[in-house]
């Protein structure tokens, strides 16, 4: 299951956080853990270069995209490689929505659309759609082209 998707700005302020199957009392802990992980390691990292960590049986893959940092947390079948796939889908879809690497302002301007995009990609902890074009159409309630 994909336990969490989190976006933060360069100062570690939360822009989007979505948890699945994580008890409410543990969310604060995860939030600060992830942001600290980013603060410790993301400095100087190139856009979309993936970093990875694991804590017991939980995996974390994270990266930088323009002014925002993106974290995905998973366990079981969503190990580091599956999460790498998930974060790739997320970053390409976000770039697609923003039209370029997002600045914080641009990210917030497109906030509604980004929420819809995330909704199309992950559904309650499972990866549902991976194709950028299809996700763009789904957000606009258009059927996919390929069938």
């Amino acid at each position, binding site marked *: 299951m994909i336990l969490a998707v989190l976006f*933060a*700005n*360069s*100062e*570690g*302020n*939360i*822009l*989007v*956080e979505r948890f699945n199957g994580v008890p409410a009392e543990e969310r*604060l802990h995860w*939030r*600060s853990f992830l*942001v*600290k992980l*980013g*603060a*410790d*390691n993301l400095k100087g990292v190139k856009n979309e*270069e*993936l*970093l*990875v*960590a*694991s804590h017991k049986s939980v995996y974390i*893959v994270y990266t930088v995209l323009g002014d925002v940092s993106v974290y995905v947390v998973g366990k079981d*079948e969503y*190990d*580091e*490689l*599956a*999460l*790498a*796939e998930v974060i790739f889908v997320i970053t390409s879809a976000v770039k697609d929505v923003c039209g370029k690497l997002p*600045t*914080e*302002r641009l990210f*917030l*301007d497109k*906030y*509604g659309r980004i*929420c*819809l995009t995330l*909704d199309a990609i992950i*559904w*309650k902890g*499972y990866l*549902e*759609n*991976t194709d950028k074009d*299809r996700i763009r159409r*789904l*957000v*606009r*309630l*258009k*059927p*996919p082209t*390929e*069938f």
Partner: protein
Amino acid sequence: MAQPLVKKEDDRDDEVDYSPFLGIEKGAVLQEARVFNDPQLDPRRCSQVITKLLYLLNQGETFTKVEATEVFFAVTKLFQSRDMGLRRMVYVIIKELSPSADEVIIVTSSLMKDMTSKTDMYRANAIRVLFRITDGTLLTQIERYLKQAIVDKNPVVASAALVSGIHLLQTNPEIVKRWSNEVQEAVQSRAALVQFHALALLHQIRQNDRLAVNKLVSSLTRGSVRSPLAQCLLIRYTSQVIRESTNDTQTGDRPFYDFLEGCLRHKAEMVIFEAARAITELNGLTSRELTPAITVLQLFLSSSKPVLRFAAVRTLNKVAMSHPMAVTNCNIDMESLISDQNRSIATLAITTLLKTGNESSVDRLMKQITNFMSDIADEFKIVVVDAIRSLCLKFPLKHRSLMNFLSNILREEGGFEYKKAIVDSIVILIRDIPEAKESGLLHLCEFIEDCEFTYLSTQILHFLGIEGPKTSDPSKYIRYIYNRVHLENATVRAGAVSTLAKFGAMVDGLKPRIFVLLRRCLFDNDDEVRDRATLYLNTLGGDGAVVETDEGVKEFLFGSLDVPLVNLENSLKNYDPSEKAFDINSVPKDVKTQPLAEKKATSKKPTGLGAPPPGPPSTVDAYEKLLSSIPEFASFGKLFKSSAPVELTEAETEYAVNVVKHIFDGHVVFQYNCTNTIPEQLLENVTVIVDASEAEEFAEVASKPLRQLPYDSPGQTFVAFEKPEGVSAVGKFSNMLRFIVKEVDPSTGEAEDDGVEDEYQLEDLELVAADYMLKVGVSNFRNAWESMGVDFERVDEYGLGPRDSLAEAVNAVINLLGMQPCEGTEVVPPNSRSHTCLLSGVYLGNVKVLVRLQFGLDGPKDVAMKLAVRSEDETVSDTIHEIVASG
């Protein structure tokens, strides 16, 4: 560093590029949400308000029940709009608001309408929303549509229904199981993701039916699976099938191995990795099977993608535990990862190298690790410390450089857990490697000179008190200990006073100087420190006369309490402060017997300072005290060995009895630990009648009955036998529990006056050769073997007959002899044809014994063994051969 928990709206004031959500406030947004009720809906404005609501929710903001209900009702009005963008937002916000069961009804008809809509995308989204917010009752009404959706031409609709099914399986499995045929059809879909979701769901539906899973895997491994994600799932299910089938049949080729091996050449890295990992996790791997997987993992080690490097090194780290030799080929690639920017990768690389490295590479590795330690977090450092401790135990000759490394990192900055891990490691090394003792103690002494953790300081002081006096020059530790009295808080000062006193009691030459130091502590401003100093000075003879400390005094001050701590704690809690002083003799000495399995588990834990050595030493001490307090057994001499408790009753019977075998030179005492599990009974005059007719060399000399055995309060009865002195006699004893049973009135707890004599049959008990052997390990077997010499060496060969495996034969001989395996040689690598096992022990009469066992497979199953024994006594070497010959 960033302030992680500050919300966006609290951001810097000088932000030039204002956020669209600047100053957003929940109350205001809820006010804005009234636009949803406008008769003339403005889709754009409504979408903006929903975005604001989502922003609040995504930041962890919560709505009260009333607020959520109000927004939800307003949102339902938006179904009137035909605007596509707005409809999409409505679907999302309904899911986020998660309306309660009684509110859902408001929206279900709109969603059901969308579910049967001609617009595909309405259908897909309506399915997702409905599943999120409804319970099982509604599902039966829409099941027909769902089944259709699973096989819908539009992959989005199919995926929505399939993923919904995966979630629904947790709550309503019986409904989802009815969809098997449709899901099976979807597995064949041409759309990659539909196939992925369908495969996941189908497997979950059938996961308890092994045959069905086997069939599923068989058919799919033959066909082509389009999506790499689905292929990964298939690999996982395949390895599950392999695991289960290997357990069933031990013969023949491994099924599906070729499929896994084929996946190593797949174009997607994800699939290659999954296959490699699946192969490494198979049981009983041959090196031919393992090599291709290791090769691809080795390639991944130098990948430009950190995720791949991490995955590969993580897997190799696991492989290194079971097949260290297979991983050594990757060592060069692994060494280059020590400087990897990603610290998780670097730590895994280090710990893998520590597992696979040989003695000659230790120094080089340590040099590399030293540079690396300064820039990783404590949690990674702890992993490295643990690995170094294991390495040192594996190569005791390298203790100098490894101990130096540990002492260096002990001086650097670090948190409590990290420092504790280092101290624990040093303590374990001191205990297990005698040569490392003095340098280790000095490192600990230096550490407490500048230690900020009271817990660690007191523990080290306590440990110094035990080990320091036994060293060649105990005086050199005194300065370190006395410094604590000057410079520390009261807890540490009190600990230091006790340690000083221990040195005074154990080392007579130091006594006068210790007394001077202790006298200075009499003016400490803490009463505990003063009290301790006074007590020690008075009991150790601090009045000026330097005499050898009386054993009784030593025992009183530093001996272990002869009551279980848990009982003492309970008694102290129940003690009512009054004029009558607390009497330690009133504390019950009986320990509630732990289940055997539990005891085994705890004694296996590696122990550092936090837990003093459990198991044998302390238990033997306690047994020794217990037995010597019984006059009948006082003349038996020194207790040689006490066995672990052997259960003589089944679990959950009326009376639970286990027995401990105590071995003396010319006697054996059986200690029967009895527990009465019936609340309505009181047992009196409990004895065990032992029939020793199958143990000819034993003659019963004493029996000590148990006067009373109330409910759930364990007690002991003893039976002692005489046996020929110094001889390891064996035999079988049958046991019968005999007692007088009295009824107890449950309301008053009082027993009736009259009782009835009764008996209860117990299991037989055997005394075997291993009972005369103490498990005592040696840190360096080769040195011990060489220094023992060939004078009393006895070598012979034995055929052990057909065995299930080499490992089984090795275990059987270890258990037969009851000796301590050394250097991890009790572990037989899978599929080995030969194996050498090294054992060490002390035999009855305190005779050191070393055994070298060489096993080989002779034919397909027959095991042959060469047994070489060296000991300090010729007859003992012969006895070991006799034990094996008769076993």
